[in-house]
């Protein structure tokens, strides 16, 4: 007999059979008040005992859910740290990022020179990551913004293709 069916038999006995038998017996023991009250108490206690596994199950599920929430919160914190670290490489503000080296120093902030390198506009990455670290729903925000980055990447792919036709830049 499985654990599940054992439990249902236990619940069936404690919550249905015993209370019904006790109720029937009460009708035969109405003259003896003490015995009748004892039977009522037996029915009530039986129903309560039958509910114990359900209560334990609810408590166990609640404990597991809290544990899962705690693990999820820890993972989110960990992911935020990685987002923050990546932002250090992909932002357009710091002077030690690749964008700064290429656009500000190599291209002297000249957009035409930057375009000749056939690279995607890096500001897109900075914008995607801009507020990502502050939001709980990074996925939703990033998904929308990635669609915009996708446009930029398509642009860069076209530029890459043109590389074969403009050798040596």
């Amino acid at each position, binding site marked *: 007999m499985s654990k599940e069916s054992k439990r249902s038999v236990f619940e069936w006995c404690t919550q249905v059979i015993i209370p019904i038998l006790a109720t029937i017996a009460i009708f035969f023991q109405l003259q003896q008040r003490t015995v009748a009250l004892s039977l009522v108490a037996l029915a009530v206690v039986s129903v309560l005992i039958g509910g114990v596994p359900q209560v334990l199950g609810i408590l166990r599920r609640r404990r597991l859910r809290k544990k899962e929430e705690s693990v999820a919160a820890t993972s989110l914190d960990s992911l935020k740290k*990685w987002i923050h670290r990546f932002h250090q490489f992909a932002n357009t503000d710091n002077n030690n990022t690749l964008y700064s080296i290429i656009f500000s120093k190599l291209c002297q902030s000249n957009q035409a020179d930057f375009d000749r390198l056939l690279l995607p506009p890096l500001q897109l*990455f900075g914008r995607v*990551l801009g507020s990502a670290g502050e939001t709980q729903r*990074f996925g939703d925000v990033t998904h929308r913004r990635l669609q915009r980055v996708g446009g930029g990447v398509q642009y860069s792919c076209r530029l890459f293709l043109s590389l074969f036709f403009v050798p040596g830049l």
Partner: protein
Amino acid sequence: MAEFNTLVGFFCRYFSSPVYEKVPLKLSPEMLQVYNYQRLEPELIQFRERFDRFLGDYMDFLNDLDPNLLSAPLGTFAYYFDRPKPLAVKVDPAI
């Protein structure tokens, strides 16, 4: 997680790797002069080292991640990113 991986992948594939493939070999002479004058080589090398370390750590983090914690599986290629290659050649500053 998947969205962030996509973002990192885009950055590696379409920005950082192409930069290290093109600079300095495929620069125009004018830009090559700027490259030498501004002494960008050490900065690019330094950036590559930092970024490569980040990618290595992040890939280790992804590999060690418990798949049960993810709402959706990441897929095989989500654990690998293009790492920028070392700069092609050392350009003579006299050029």
